[in-house]
């Protein structure tokens, strides 16, 4: 065997070193990143794991993903941050974002490369809602959603109703007829469930559809000064009193449970988050109203409905900012030019995103066509209305404590003017 000389050793190692440098230059994308921790609440965790695998393989990432149950997600993340644990990239619901940002758990994204391009591509309303109170961007979009009105076409046809309601009066009139004709015990299914995704977003939606404001420019509750809110609440009392709504909806613990009631085909109208229409009208194995027997129609009144944006955020204490930002762009942006993650959420779950250009993609159009009129849905999104009140420290407590007040109003336990005054008083007491 030829002995290794100092000269041959230097030549060999020099060649190896040069090839390594060149390889990094040519195939920079496959360079292994530093390990980063990524946490999200449990929603299709296998799908998220697939994204992470794709990312690790395609972009040389070393992402460790952890799914935490939804109900305890935000307290868990805070407790673990308290214990010194750092999750570099984290999901964050819109109503927790300001708290995390103001307390230094997450950082602004404004100084990160490429952010201005991404902002330009986003729907301005969603962009605004992703900003913290100081005007800086606090997260990239995980998904956006808004309230829509869905109707059961076969039931309306059976009752001789030719077209879905275009106004609230018409909706109530249809519901009364369906009840009277014994076509449905409870024709109307509003999302009055007790969770934070139910009663209060529905309350804001119906107020907006009446052209009313719920908060003023300083984010104070002003519902007692808005005739549109009173009109919406009087209508809610009316449909409750006429037994047009299943009373059990008040104890449903999630919007998911609420929308499942509509699967039975025993209700005529339903209001809920837009993505639930995908299971209602697109999953024949679950819903009696699939395929496409349940349809969306524009929300009555002004057509405006409550819209929100949940997000991916970056930990302010991350030691791997470049890699965390790269992962965040893969998840909440368009890192490889194919909208991979955002597109998958649209296709798999009907979770929308604030990038309008994505809806021109033929795969997206074909997929949505199986469960909704995409053009109509996009038109509804143009009417989506965001709020800024959730950026206030009192909001989460107000949001929970307001539910019993609204439930009492619905059931006639308090009058509408009294109930609306109680909401204002509640908000003031929490300031």
């Amino acid at each position, binding site marked *: 065997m030829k002995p290794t000389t100092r000269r041959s050793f230097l030549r060999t190692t020099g060649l190896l070193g040069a090839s390594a440098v060149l390889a990094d230059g040519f195939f920079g994308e496959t360079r292994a990143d530093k390990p980063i921790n990524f946490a999200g609440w449990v929603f299709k965790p296998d799908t998220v794991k697939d994204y992470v695998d794709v990312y690790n393989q395609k972009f040389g990432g070393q992402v460790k993903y952890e799914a935490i149950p939804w109900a305890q997600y935000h*307290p868990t993340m805070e407790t673990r941050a308290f214990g010194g644990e750092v999750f570099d990239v984290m999901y964050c619901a819109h109503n927790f974002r300001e708290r995390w940002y103001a307390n230094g758990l997450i950082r602004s994204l404004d100084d990160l490369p490429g952010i201005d391009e991404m902002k330009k591509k986003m729907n301005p309303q969603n962009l605004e809602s992703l900003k913290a109170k100081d005007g800086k961007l606090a997260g990239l979009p995980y998904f956006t959603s808004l309230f829509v009105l869905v109707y059961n076409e076969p039931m309306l046809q059976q009752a001789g109703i030719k077209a879905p309601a275009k106004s609230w009066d018409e909706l109530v009139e249809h519901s009364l007829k369906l009840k009277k004709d014994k076509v449905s015990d409870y024709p109307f299914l509003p999302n009055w469930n007790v969770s934070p995704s139910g009663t209060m977003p529905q309350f804001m939606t119906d107020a907006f559809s009446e052209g009313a404001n719920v908060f003023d420019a300083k984010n104070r509750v002003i519902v007692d000064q808005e005739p549109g809110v009173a009109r919406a609440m009087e209508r809610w009392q009316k449909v409750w009193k006429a037994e047009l709504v299943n009373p*059990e909806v008040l104890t449903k613990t999630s919007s998911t449970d609420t929308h499942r009631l509509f699967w039975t085909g025993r209700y005529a109208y339903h209001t809920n988050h837009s993505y639930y229409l995908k299971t209602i009208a697109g999953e024949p194995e679950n819903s009696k109203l699939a395929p496409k027997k349940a349809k969306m129609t524009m929300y009555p009144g002004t057509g405006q409905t409550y819209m929100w944006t949940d997000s991916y955020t970056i930990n302010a204490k991350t030691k791997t900012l470049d890699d965390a930002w790269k992962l965040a762009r893969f998840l909440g942006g368009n890192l490889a030019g194919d909208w991979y993650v955002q597109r998958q959420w649209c296709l798999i779950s009907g979770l929308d995103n604030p990038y309008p250009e994505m809806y021109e993609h033929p795969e997206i159009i074909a997929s949505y066509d199986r469960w909704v009129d995409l053009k109509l849905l996009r038109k509804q999104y143009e009417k989506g209305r965001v709020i800024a009140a959730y950026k206030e420290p009192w909001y989460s407590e107000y949001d*929970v404590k307001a539910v019993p007040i609204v439930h009492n109003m619905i059931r006639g336990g308090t009058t509408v003017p009294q109930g609306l005054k109680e909401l204002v008083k509640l908000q003031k007491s929490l300031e």
Partner: protein
Amino acid sequence: MTVRRFRLSERCFASLLILPVFLAISLVVLFPLAYSLWMSFADVNLLRATGPALELLGLRIPLFRYVGLQNYLRLLSDPLYWDSFGRTAYFVGAFVLETTVVGLGMALVLHERFVGRPVMRSLLLIPWSLSRVVVGLLWVGLLDVEFGALNGFLYKAGLIDRYISFLKSGFSALNVLVSVYMWNQAPFATLLLLAGMQSIPIELYMAAEADGAGYWQRLRYVTLPALRGILFLVLVVSTVNGFLMLDLIYVLTMGGPGNETTTISWLGFQTAFQFFKFGPGTAILYTLTVFCLLLTVLYQKVMFRKLEAEEA
């Protein structure tokens, strides 16, 4: 050369033996208890944990800002707390009564000899061994107004002409919670009472029979007095469990409709983990501890007063 032996007294030796366990218990039980008690007197924000802190095993444990009795005074002046207290009292009362009566009834049945008794005794433990979240989901599946198996069964049997909404009002929802929790917990009471019954000397029954006592008299004058200690345990355990019950509310009603199934434990959980007010949240939950202690003392006094009088 004389060898001086170092001798430990028996007391010191025993203390040394239990020291590791005492330290472990202090770390995992006493310290969290003391810390959470401290939190109930403090203004706590987990995300702003600056200021004075304890260092323990390399961990920094913030002490937060002391606010005295403020958290307690605020909750005691909150009408929602007193509403929740009323519902909690109803819930605990109904739950303890149902659990004790049903547990005793099942224990009496399982104490008798009949074919299949070993199987029945084994099956009895299934509800108790299930996690409460699973119990909640199971009962959602049974009671649901659209998909519920119970509604389906009653409808198909022709007993109802439309599905029943078991959770439509606050009071019926609260009673559903009581019954579901009883279903989950009564087997444990049965187990304890059955063990107690098996330890009653057969001679007592024979003597009672010889005196002409019937079934109810034997139950009244032999079984129940002999079970006094076990009944005390059942009452204490079910009272504490009743006060602390949270999981079923989470799965079945989330405190609604309105606040009509909000108990003190749910209010404390909401305050601490939904509003992130850990100070007031722990204060609410410590009031539960006080109620549990008071009721335990009361049970003890009532149940053993007669016995003590007899012994005296």
